[in-house]
């Protein structure tokens, strides 16, 4: 029985932890499908986390926080778009520049505004996205199996978690079922074909960057106003890069990417659970080693998936009209 409780708890935290990962991975997917490599997910996430926490702290509303987070993230996405599209710069360099800039700017501003040594004030529950109970959760609680799955596991997450899962079919629908999605996927494969079909490559790529910005903004907001209760220095802790790895593992497709995110989130949840647990024979695993786990798994997964076979063909390559 304890084992089942463990599994349930583990699954519960997996779902919770996965939300920002899923949103960020979808952001990376939108960008790369349009031909722009976005290694700046990490920075956008952190910036959005800061923006959302600050706005929520000042206004007391998580919604205004979410809006602010998205706004900040979209601005950075457009900056990355400008460098990648107009300046035809190196997209990896630009993404890293944004990551580093944000790592400095967020605590600088936090310190100037709140004087808390680079953090934002702790948000009370009114200013956060807190757990919501799904309909009938209470009624079904005592029903065997269904109760455990529905009331304990599925119900009681924050709005951002539900939103993250909802975005997967939404993005998949946009990409595969709409005219816009067709064009977006085309521009990541062969921008020249799109250009000669009379569609603006520039415009499409900016639109993709805005989508990536919005999703990343949601991801960062989830981090600071749903999972956490305020902004802490470097709180994204490599999640942007994990999201990118999940997208590669998911072969640039929404549903497999979701599964990859769940795997990463599960490992993260597991690492939390393993702390302080004593194992037969080996005893207690030092906390530093359990912390390594998600990063090690990422490397192993990347090692197992050779290269760029499924990557959109034009991703990372600036489009020059006249060659």
């Amino acid at each position, binding site marked *: 029985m304890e084992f089942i409780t463990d599994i349930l708890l583990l699954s519960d935290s997996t779902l919770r932890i996965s939300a920002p990962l899923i949103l960020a991975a979808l952001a990376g997917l939108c960008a790369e499908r349009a031909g722009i490599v976005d290694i700046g997910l990490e920075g956008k996430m952190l910036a959005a986390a800061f923006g959302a926490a600050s706005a929520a702290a000042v206004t007391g509303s998580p919604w205004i926080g979410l809006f602010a987070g998205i706004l900040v993230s979209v601005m950075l996405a457009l900056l990355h778009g400008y460098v990648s599209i107009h300046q035809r710069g190196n997209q990896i360099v630009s993404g890293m520049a944004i990551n580093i800039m944000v790592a400095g700017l967020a605590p600088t501003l936090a310190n100037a505004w709140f004087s808390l040594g680079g953090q934002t004030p702790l948000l009370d529950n009114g200013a956060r996205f807190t757990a919501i109970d799904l309909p009938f959760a209470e009624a079904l609680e005592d029903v065997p199996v269904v109760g455990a799955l529905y009331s304990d596991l599925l119900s009681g997450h924050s709005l951002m978690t539900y939103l993250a899962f909802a975005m997967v079919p939404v993005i998949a629908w946009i990409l595969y*079922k709409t*005219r816009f999605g067709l064009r977006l996927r085309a521009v990541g*494969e062969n921008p020249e074909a*799109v250009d000669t079909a009379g569609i603006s490559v520039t415009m499409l790529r900016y639109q993709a960057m805005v989508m990536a910005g919005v999703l990343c903004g949601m991801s960062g907001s989830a981090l600071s106003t749903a999972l956490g209760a305020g902004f802490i220095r470097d709180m994204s802790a490599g999640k942007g890069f994990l999201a990118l790895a999940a997208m590669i593992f998911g072969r640039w497709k929404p549903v497999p990417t979701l599964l990859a995110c769940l795997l990463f989130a599960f490992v993260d949840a597991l690492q939390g659970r393993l702390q302080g647990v004593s194992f037969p024979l080996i005893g207690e695993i030092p906390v530093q080693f359990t912390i390594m786990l998600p990063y090690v798994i990422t490397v192993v997964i990347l090692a197992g998936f050779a290269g760029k076979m499924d990557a959109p063909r034009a991703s990372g390559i600036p489009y020059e009209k006249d060659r």
Partner: protein
Amino acid sequence: MHVAPAIETRDLCKRFGDVKANDNVSLVVEQGSVHGIVGENGAGKSTLLKMLFGFYQPNSGDLIVNGEHISFSSPSEAMAAGIAMVHQHFMLVEPFTVLENIILGAEGQGLLKHAEIDAKAKLKGLEQQFGFDIPLDEPVSHLSVGQRQRVEILKALFRGAETLILDEPTAVLTPQECDQLFELVRLLKSRGKTILFVTHKLHEIMAVTDTVTVIRAGKVIVRTDTSSTSPEALAEAMVGSKISRAVTRADTSKGTPRISVQNVSAVSDHGHRALQNVSFDLFDGEVLGVAGVAGNGQTELLEILTGLRRVSEGSVSLTGNVINSANVYTDPIALRRAGVAHVAEDRLKSGVVASMSARENAILGYQRDADFSRNGLMRLAAIDQAANDYFESQDVRPRNPDLPIASFSGGNQQKLVIAREIARSPQTLIIGQPTRGVDIGAVTKIHDQITELRNAGKALLVVSADLDELMAISDRIAVLCDGKLVGIVPISEADERTIGLMMAGSPAATVDNVEQSQ
């Protein structure tokens, strides 16, 4: 009543910096006709086309479409005026289906499901009218080159094109596919479409056009009815003064094979079988031409001969010593030392490093020679000397080895590459696309050089997509199709029809007078 021409230009000019790419070009293309435009590479054909479909804007002059003065600021405006272009390099998204490619940019509906239903209905009509038979739900990557071209044409018709510009449409086709294309062009014409047929091959002009315009150095030289001209007259107009070949083929005697390829199979980068059981010999004092539609194993053949790819079965021997087999592998550097030089088929992709100076490119592949490096250190003075020598011997211009190689013209790049590869007097030369992207003046020189090397007793294997080129320089022509060697034809018995059938895979047995491949 006179119908206004489909396209008319008056004194169209386009300059790039100080270069006049188009100089007062005047053109008349009548409704419902097939109009040919001929000219050498670099004559200004593509600049003209790009202005006609809105990719470039002219500096001066008029463009008149269906009697109306017009100026296009983008390809979509040209499209709206009924002008569509079928590019030499197809503008298709390979992982997408045919249908998705056709509707891209002309979906009409926000939702793909509805757009595809509408499109299918419209395409059914077009297919019946023009006799297309293309699987709409197949990904484009599964189609043959000829089919892809048809997708491009269908794409244009779907968008309501009345005038189609075909840019070098036969460059990638087998002779038989060319015939099918000509059929289609005639059918399109009979249904009232206007065709602008751009090529540098004169027999195509004679075969398919009604009227023809010859362009040279950015200017219109001749405009005439096709029926009242001859290939000779067009050739003279196209080239200007007649360029004659300075070097003729001398008699050479066949000795022992220099390179012997025995039952070789090889696997491509994508993991499928690129060469299957290929066997042939390459002798001293001959040019063995290799023909085939692009992507039928030519690239892999070049690679297994130059140490860039291991064979999976069979063996390659150089003067009797195995250099490439399942258990023997010789790297490119060792092969160069053994006298096998390699002119890469795609110069900018692998033959040179575009951003590096011409000097540094002059030793690429030979950087480990004792002349150029010793004990791991580069010998800069010797490298400089070599680069200067190459510039001198091949007349590479401008004479500045400091410039990045990318800033030289294609012809000058290729001259430097050839100088580099023949500097060590190799006995064997493996050459891919000797004149791709090379201006006309340099083409003749390169062909002469190949013949001189042959006359001097070297063994040369030349892969080319240009059948005319192979006919001009080869002693024998080998044909690859689908990774198999269809056969080898001596030049005295080679003609376009035979080679064309072989390129399409017709077994050698049905072709007369062909040496059987083993």
